[in-house]
């Protein structure tokens, strides 16, 4: 039986006052691209830092390729390429020196691969780190994470600060790396990013994993944006529509009603109760809308887990 690339069991880091990470059970298979989604402060970086052995979990365990992330942390890091959310300061060191310094710590890097990645992103390694823009610092982070051909890449919000062209280049690099046999775990709060590259997505909210789904499955969530136009003179059954199960965000404007429908259309159709509808439009939700619908802070955690 193949060893999972990442496996966590009840992984928790409790910072008090409800902050942290709680009971994370997650499995990422080899050669999979897994997106870890959630807004700022949801616990994405905490989970990643537990996986990297930077912080000790309060409870639970994490394994990478069967190795314990804490006990076997050195062996784990031989297999992992890591990109932190924020690059640290390297002051007056040049990019090429930062690469050589961290490459020296790792022991083995492929200079040709470094050159290839730097050229792809047009990152001048001859400049000093303090002269780099935030985008260039991200590019350097990409070089450092990919330069030793790791089996697993753990990337914390990798495209923040990159322009659209470089984002596209990054997605291509991720796809190529996966095809070469690597596993990729990336966190993001940008849904379009995971749409581009991920096979599966985990959504984390307030420190708890609320849903893990295939990308297609997320698209299949029954969330629709509805627009109904009633015949002139028709009495709109507004109260019934508002109280229908799964119907939300109801806005009535003259003879038009717009709303969001979760699940089946049946409760909405029943609420219409024979009123004459002259036009009915249903739009497919983007992943963004799906996410926002389920992710609103007031939505119960269980809702998305259905």
């Amino acid at each position, binding site marked *: 039986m193949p060893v999972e690339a990442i496996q966590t069991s009840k992984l928790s880091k409790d910072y008090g006052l409800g902050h942290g990470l709680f009971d994370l059970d997650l499995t990422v298979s080899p050669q999979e691209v897994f997106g870890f989604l959630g807004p700022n402060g949801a616990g994405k970086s905490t989970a990643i*830092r537990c996986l*990297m*052995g*930077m*912080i*000790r979990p309060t409870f639970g365990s994490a394994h990478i390729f069967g190795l314990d992330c804490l006990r076997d*942390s*050195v*062996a784990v*890091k*031989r297999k*992992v390429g*890591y990109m*932190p959310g*924020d*690059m*640290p*300061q*390297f002051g007056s*060191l*040049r990019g*090429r*020196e930062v*690469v*050589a*310094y*961290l*490459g*020296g*710590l*790792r*022991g083995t*890097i492929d*200079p040709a691969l*470094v*050159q290839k990645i*730097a*050229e792809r992103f*047009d*990152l*001048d*390694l*001859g400049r000093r780190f*303090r002269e780099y823009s935030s985008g260039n610092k991200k590019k350097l982070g990409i070089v*450092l994470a990919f330069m030793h051909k790791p089996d697993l890449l753990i990337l914390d919000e990798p495209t923040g600060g990159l322009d659209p062209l470089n984002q596209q280049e990054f997605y291509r690099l991720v796809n190529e790396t996966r095809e070469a046999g690597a596993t990729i775990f990336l966190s993001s709060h940008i849904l379009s990013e995971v749409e581009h590259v991920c096979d599966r997505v985990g959504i984390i909210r307030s420190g708890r994993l609320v849903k893990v789904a295939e990308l297609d499955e997320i698209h299949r969530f029954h969330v629709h944006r509805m627009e109904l136009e009633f015949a002139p003179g028709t009495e709109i059954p507004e109260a019934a529509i508002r109280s229908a199960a799964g119907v939300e965000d109801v806005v009535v404007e003259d003879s038009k009603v717009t709303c969001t429908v979760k699940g089946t259309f049946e409760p909405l159709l029943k609420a219409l109760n024979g009123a004459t509808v002259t036009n009915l439009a249903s739009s497919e939700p983007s992943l963004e809308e799906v996410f926002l619908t389920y992710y609103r802070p007031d939505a119960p955690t269980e809702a998305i887990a259905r």
Partner: protein
Amino acid sequence: MTAIRLALRLGQWGLIGFAIVGFIATFINAVAFYAVAGHTPAEREAFARSFAQIASQLTVLLPPAMRLDTVGGYVQYRAYGSLAILFAIWALASASGAARGNEERGLVEVVVATGLSRVRVLAAHVAAFAIASFVAALAASAGLMVGAIAGQESFPIGPAIEAAVLLAAIAVSCYSLVLLVAQLVARIATGIAGAMLLALFLLNSLSRTFASLHTLRWLSPFRYYELSTPLPPGGNFDVTATLVLVGIAIVAGGLAALAFQKRDLGSALFALRASARPPTYEPSSAPVWRVPIVRDLYDRRIGLATWAVGVSAMAALFVVLTKTIVQPLLSIPGLAVYFAAILHGPIYQSFLSALWFGVAQLLVAGFAITQVGRWSAEDTDGRLELILSNPVSRTRVVIERALVLALGALIIAAVSGVAVGVESHYQSIDLDAGRLAEASLMLVPVTLVFAAFGALLAARLPRATVGILGTFAFASYLMLQLGPIFKLPEWVQDLSAFKLYGQPLIEGIDRTGLAIMVAIVLVGFWASAIVMQRRDVGA
């Protein structure tokens, strides 16, 4: 007002630190005066005569002394000459941080984006530093007054406040000059501004010896500082000279504001265009990056070279001073008692052993503290996290840090030891080469003792580490130097970390002290490795 409050908030640790330093400097000197100058007018007159001989040897560095038979005259000479230098260094660090550090961190951009004009941003910084330096200078005056009370005397408040105004004025004028330089150049602003302040200081101090510099000394703010001597009886407070210092602050601040308005944020008014060169995509192939320890030494080579040269220069200066001022010092009855307590063996050698190697221990402790501060910064800015994302254990990180520090200390100790040896030869002071090597090498375990404490503290209290270690080092030094004068109990003097060093230049290596230091180093780094294993990185 909000901008001034923000600037004060950002500089609060500087204010607190220099207020403490100012208070301690004047208090200790006032107390020391009563301890060494005697109690009768005749004793004090004799003390003043002897000390004036020493002062006359030091006019290259410090302004002439007056009324050394009084606590005001003694503290004016001993403390306020050095405090002017210290406050100028504070102005340098604070102004370059305000002008360049805040800009690199993006803070200036955020403040300017609120609609505050650049002139007001700069004016707020100058005003905040003026307030901070005046408060710290008042603390120095308070130290003198408390010291005088401890000596059963009282000191008038008027001259004390005049001294505070004067000290704040020199500090603010230096601050504005640094602000101006920081607008003109960017990356090396601190270095250029520091060189400028040093040149202005030397211009004034050397003009006391070299008549050819008389015509130029009006350029130096330090000249206007020393025109006032408010503390000794019969001293004066030169209002015009003090107003010139304020004028320098206003004019330099105004020019800095003008330059700030005309330049781009993040850039300098006079920025050289980067020379055209093709981009580089290859990693550095220099072999130093592949060798553990060596890569970290190479990474901090400039700082290390600066420390080695600086400590060596001070070592050579101490040797020269030893030859010049030992005899006058021994002629002071109060100091003779002190020297009898700390000097053992041949006079010049003993003097170097007790005074230079005492200062050298403080300096290498300072080196250790800066390195420990760097470890804390690596933790908070995420560099340690990136290092640990490679296949290196936390224990290895601790061991490598210790070894890098040990080698750095070894380089400083060796270079400064050579400087002492060479200068002693020129000054005809006969030093045993083996003993000198032992005394120099013993600085390495002293450095490591502070580093071991620091590593442990940095693992638990990263933000407070530098402050706690600095206080410990300063207290250790004071206990070592002043313990014999104040006849502190032996066990109190034993609390000094420097006591373990012994007198290797005279008596050879104190094996017990060395063994204790080695034990402290091993236990300290072992404990810090354990704490490092168990703690969260970046927490």
